[in-house]
């Protein structure tokens, strides 16, 4: 017997398992794993025969034997004798067609038989019989998908999926098509959202019945937006699509796949569910305007593993002070506009907590002004613990205290909102008291303090439990006194909690404390101590350390004030700033503050906010911020850009390029000659010129009449309009530009350099000022910026040599390079300032990938445009996947599929960009 197997208490079972282990320890292990812990006595009766069958199966094929052992074990542990018989029968039938099929059945029959739905097993048999007519190869992927559905307890979906398979495999299709569907259908079904999977499967079946070739179009339509439709809406849409298909197959196809404009509009009209991505920008703008802070919106699915404190349904909204988490999509209401409004409502509710300082709770302030002895351990500072958690730790009944805090704080915010935002208050109150809406969201409201919550927050009449009447009325009176001045803070709510808890304890009100039922609020909202930490955790840690440093020197400041200062000043805070925060300033404290200046500077550097020494290699270094798209704010001083020189010189490359492209060079020179400005500007008051200046003539006559010496500057000159363009060509020197483009090992960068040479010739002809720079680097502190030619540098052999010497470097931190280029170009007085980014892909660097890198680069481009600098991009060697539009803007980039076209196209693009 394998020592790893847990020995069974039953000697018969032990003996049989040992017997099986001799044949195959793995099979024995798998079977025993299911039998261990199972109390079924039935299994013992059947086990002997089962073991023999498994041993026979192992003799046929080892995988089959092991799967059979596993399956038998599961059936014995969790099934009935009838299930076992059926399982045995179906597997034995499958064995006659080969071990592969038998293994599949052994593996996937178990969930079918043990799910508790006998009809499913019948359907399984029928479906697999149809599929086997096409071949055993049709079974593997679909059966795996079926097992997944059953394991997720989606039995209705399992039925629908089997119907889909029956329908599909009953059709006459080619072998290739069958193989394709065998893999596509399970993958698609697994990818459907759980809540809508059932009717989407049925929709797929319906479409396949019409024409199986439409399956791909249907799946494409789902990916493009049909997946958000409700069941009724999807059926309506499919009715339209099928009707169109019957009239015109092409039109029907385009409609079904949401390629036609009419289809998109129809889908939008039918759409009820609203994905978060559709409303997120609007919500973030609103929150920015409402609070003045960069509050980010994220989906609930992105929560970093934090769970609500209690075992209750997932809240519809959660907030940690700077990020509001909302559902990935909302389809609770019957109309799309109502679902959008629900998003706004939830964001509006949490915005109030952020705006009015709920998350600024500072326990020290509470205790200082409460006039009560501090609860035990409340003064200890655990860096990773929120102030709310610290506060609650001091109470005998933390849950009760949390409920009271939630109650008073929500009430306080409701009062503020009603005062400043009456329209919003009306909408919020209506939603909170709307029983129909609450029923749809699935959150039942309740709790001991619900009547008080209804009164303070939902603006309803006070109707407390009679047993708590006097207690509740006392609390209401205290609350009203707290809020009547309008100067209440979150600490006021905390102090009120302390008073009320003390009152409840002192009155030994058994009804209040012992029969306490926690609050269940609309939308599942509540304040969670574990989730109460400030979003800028770096600032929180730094504030804690500064607070500790100052406390050691007997300087009293509130940690929340320091944190607020850090947030407001992007992590930069000086001793002078802190002076204003000292609670009881005196000569001694100010003197002590001066002494700890070096400590503060060291703390700041430790947390990455200090001004570190610049590079020791003599390169000019510049700090720039970086945009964090998830956070919705900048990371200050995140990136270090160093200006470097291109090492070496290759003048021969420049000359060789001119030689290789001599025909193109001639055409470029001619084309750019024509680009020279044709328009005229009028210069006045010349002694000679093209025509009289009538205004000057009038002055001449008047001066003469007045007896004065008239001016002889009576003419105008018409001059060609001056082109005043300053261009900075920013070249990506990442290592990917070392990729070959042909069999002669010509690199992407070589072609880019050829294009730059031709562009330089063109710019020399037209007379525009231009600069050339390359960028690369690794990591946020290692961005290299190579100044190859500045605007005012003459275009000499040195510049030509540096162009030739450009070589692939490292990675692509594009945002920082654009910011540095913007900083260099901003002071240039030119009518048109232009940055052209020449690259071969997307930004990519250490911890700078995907959407983060794209968002930061987009932001940098936006900053440049705000500074009246045009930014255009030319990308080579990349297939268009729509991301370039997102990165640069749809009308602001050119994709050159064949890098060989770059030299010609770069010049054309430039002339188009700068034509008057």
């Amino acid at each position, binding site marked *: 017997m394998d020592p790893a197997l847990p020995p069974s208490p039953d000697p018969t079972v032990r003996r049989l398992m040992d017997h099986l282990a001799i044949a195959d320890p793995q099979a024995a292990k798998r079977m025993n794993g299911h039998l261990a812990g199972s109390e079924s006595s039935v299994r013992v009766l059947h086990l002997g025969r089962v073991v023999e069958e498994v041993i026979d199966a192992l003799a046929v094929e080892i995988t089959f034997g092991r799967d059979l052992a596993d399956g038998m074990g599961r059936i014995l542990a969790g099934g009935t004798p009838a299930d076992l018989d059926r399982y045995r029968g179906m597997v034995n039938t499958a064995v006659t067609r080969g071990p592969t099929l038998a293994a599949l059945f052994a593996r996937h029959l178990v969930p079918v038989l043990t799910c508790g739905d006998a009809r499913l097993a019948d359907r399984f048999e029928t479906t697999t019989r149809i599929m086997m007519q096409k071949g055993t190869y049709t079974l593997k992927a679909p059966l795996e998908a079926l097992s997944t559905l059953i394991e997720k307890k989606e039995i209705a979906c399992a039925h629908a999926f089997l119907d889909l398979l029956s329908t599909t495999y009953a059709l006459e299709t080619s072998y290739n098509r069958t193989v394709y569907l065998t893999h596509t259908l399970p993958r698609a079904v697994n990818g459907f959202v759980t809540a809508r999977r059932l009717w989407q499967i049925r929709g797929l079946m319906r479409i396949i019945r019409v024409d199986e070739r439409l399956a791909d179009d249907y799946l494409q339509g789902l990916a493009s937006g049909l997946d958000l439709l409700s069941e009724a809406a999807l059926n309506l849409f499919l009715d339209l699509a099928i009707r169109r298909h019957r009239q015109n197959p092409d039109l029907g196809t385009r409609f079904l796949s949401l390629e036609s404009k009419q289809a998109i509009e129809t889908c939008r009209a039918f759409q009820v569910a609203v994905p978060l991505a559709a409303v997120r920008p*609007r919500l973030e*703008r*609103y929150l920015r*305007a*409402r*609070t003045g802070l960069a509050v980010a919106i994220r989906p609930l699915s992105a929560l970093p593993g934090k769970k609500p404190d209690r075992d209750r349904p997932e809240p519809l909204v959660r907030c940690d002070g700077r990020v509001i988490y909302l559902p990935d999509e909302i389809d609770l209401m019957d109309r799309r506009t109502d679902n959008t409004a629900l998003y706004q409502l939830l964001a509006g509710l949490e915005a109030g907590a952020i705006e009015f300082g709920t998350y600024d709770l500072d326990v020290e302030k509470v205790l200082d002004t409460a006039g009560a002895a501090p609860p035990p351990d409340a003064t200890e500072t655990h860096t990773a613990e929120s102030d709310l958690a610290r506060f609650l730790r001091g109470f005998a009944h933390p849950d009760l205290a949390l409920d009271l805090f939630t109650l008073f704080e929500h009430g306080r915010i409701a009062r503020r909102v009603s005062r*400043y935002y009456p329209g919003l208050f009306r909408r919020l109150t209506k939603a909170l008291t709307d029983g129909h809406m609450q029923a749809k969201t699935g959150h039942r409201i309740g709790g001991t303090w619900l009547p008080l919550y209804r009164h303070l927050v939902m603006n309803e009449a006070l109707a407390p439990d009679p047993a708590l009447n006097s207690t509740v009325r006392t609390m209401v009176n205290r609350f009203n006194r707290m809020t009547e001045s309008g100067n209440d803070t979150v600490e006021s709510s905390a102090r009120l909690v302390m008073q009320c808890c003390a009152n409840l304890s002192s009155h030994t009100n058994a009804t209040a404390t012992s029969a306490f039922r926690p609050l269940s609020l609309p939308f599942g909202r509540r304040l969670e101590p574990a989730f109460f930490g400030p979003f800028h955790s770096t600032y929180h840690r730094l504030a804690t350390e500064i607070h500790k440093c100052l406390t050691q020197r007997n300087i009293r400041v509130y940690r929340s004030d320091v944190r607020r200062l850090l947030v407001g000043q992007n992590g930069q805070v000086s001793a002078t700033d802190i002076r204003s925060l000292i609670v009881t300033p005196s000569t001694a404290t100010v003197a002590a503050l001066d002494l700890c200046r070096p400590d503060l500077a060291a703390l700041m550097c430790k947390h990455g906010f200090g001004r570190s020494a610049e590079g020791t290699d003599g390169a000019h270094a510049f700090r720039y911020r970086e945009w964090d798209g998830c956070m919705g704010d900048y990371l200050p001083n995140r990136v270090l850009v160093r200006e470097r020189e291109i090492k070496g010189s290759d003048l021969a490359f420049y000359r060789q390029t001119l030689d290789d492209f001599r025909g193109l060079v001639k055409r470029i020179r001619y084309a750019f000659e024509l680009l020279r400005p044709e328009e005229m500007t009028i210069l006045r008051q010349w002694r000679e010129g093209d025509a009289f200046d009538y205004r000057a003539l009038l002055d001449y006559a008047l001066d003469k009449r*007045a*007896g004065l010496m008239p001016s002889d500057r009576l003419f105008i000159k018409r001059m060609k309009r001056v082109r005043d363009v300053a261009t900075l060509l920013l070249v990506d020197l990442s290592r990917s530009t070392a990729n070959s483009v042909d069999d002669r090992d010509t690199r992407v960068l070589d072609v880019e350099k050829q294009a730059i040479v031709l562009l330089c010739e063109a710019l020399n002809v037209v007379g525009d000022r231009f600069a050339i720079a390359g960028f690369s680097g690794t990591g946020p502190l290692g961005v290299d910026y190579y100044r190859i030619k500045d605007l005012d540098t003459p275009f000499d052999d040195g510049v030509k040599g540096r162009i030739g010497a450009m070589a692939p470097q490292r990675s692509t931190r594009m945002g920082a390079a654009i910011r540095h280029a913007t900083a260099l170009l*901003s002071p240039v007085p030119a009518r048109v300032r232009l940055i052209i980014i020449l690259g071969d892909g997307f930004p990519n660097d250490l911890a700078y990938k995907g959407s983060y890198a794209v968002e930061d680069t987009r932001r940098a481009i936006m900053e440049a445009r705000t500074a009246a600098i045009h930014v255009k991009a030319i990308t080579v060697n990349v297939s268009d996947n729509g991301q370039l539009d997102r990165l640069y803007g749809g009308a602001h980039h050119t994709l050159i599929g064949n890098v060989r076209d770059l030299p010609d196209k770069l010049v054309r693009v430039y002339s188009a960009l700068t034509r008057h």
Partner: protein
Amino acid sequence: MIADALRRRKRFAGIRGAGAKETRLDDLMQENSTSKNPYTIDTEPFYLDTGEEIRMFEAAASARLPVMLKGPTGCGKTRFVEHMAFRLKRPLITVACHEDLFASDLIGRYLLKDDETVWVDGPLTRAVRMGAICYLDEVVEARKDTTVVIHPLTDNRRTLSIDKKGEVVQAHPDFLMVISYNPGYQSVLKDLKQSTRQRFVALSFDYPEPDDESRIVAVEGNVDADTAARLVTLAGKIRNIREHGLTEGASTRLLIYAAGLIRCGIAFKAACIASLCQPLTDDDRLQETLNDLIDDLL
């Protein structure tokens, strides 16, 4: 002023070219013979002092120092100048600067009148002579060869040279040069030269604090305090998204416009859309956000 004019007449009598009627003197005499100077402000313009700006301006005027007013559009720079002109009992001559403004538009030119040429002083010369406050609004819009005209007036010389007449006008002791500009969105090409900037004492303006702004909107817009407070709250929210889509925030002037519409019976939301949302931006998404903010306040 009349005595000065008479002295000048005597001085120029012997100068060639002065035979042309010195109608300017007659104009001045005529102006002074009537009781009303058209540039004098008779009614006190409402202005709420939010800092030390009144005291600072009075000190600069007393020391004859030119003043530069910097601030965003619609924050009260022009109103402040009007208020100070009333307070100091000096006439106010305002010139709206633009890029086609020539030096002769400021100084003056000869014009044909009946059968004679007459010299007509420009607004700057008038102000210099009569001791008025000359206010150049948005001075960066003017060409630099025009703005250098004011240089002799803004240093210790306090003179204005009229080349066509061969005259150097000594500024009246009460003359004061005031310029304004909005540094927020000026391009590099349109910034003030240092040689111009450093001739002025600068006062910085911004939108007032909410309580002050509410009072201003209530008075100027003639609406109740609650409506004014709501408009100011809305402006505060809009200003939070300046640089996040909007080039400039909502100015106090726009709030007063909105108040004016509300006073005339227009609904709050419609007035805010017409006065605040539509003028600030054409972007649909920003309009959406502004509408959301208005709905919160209704």
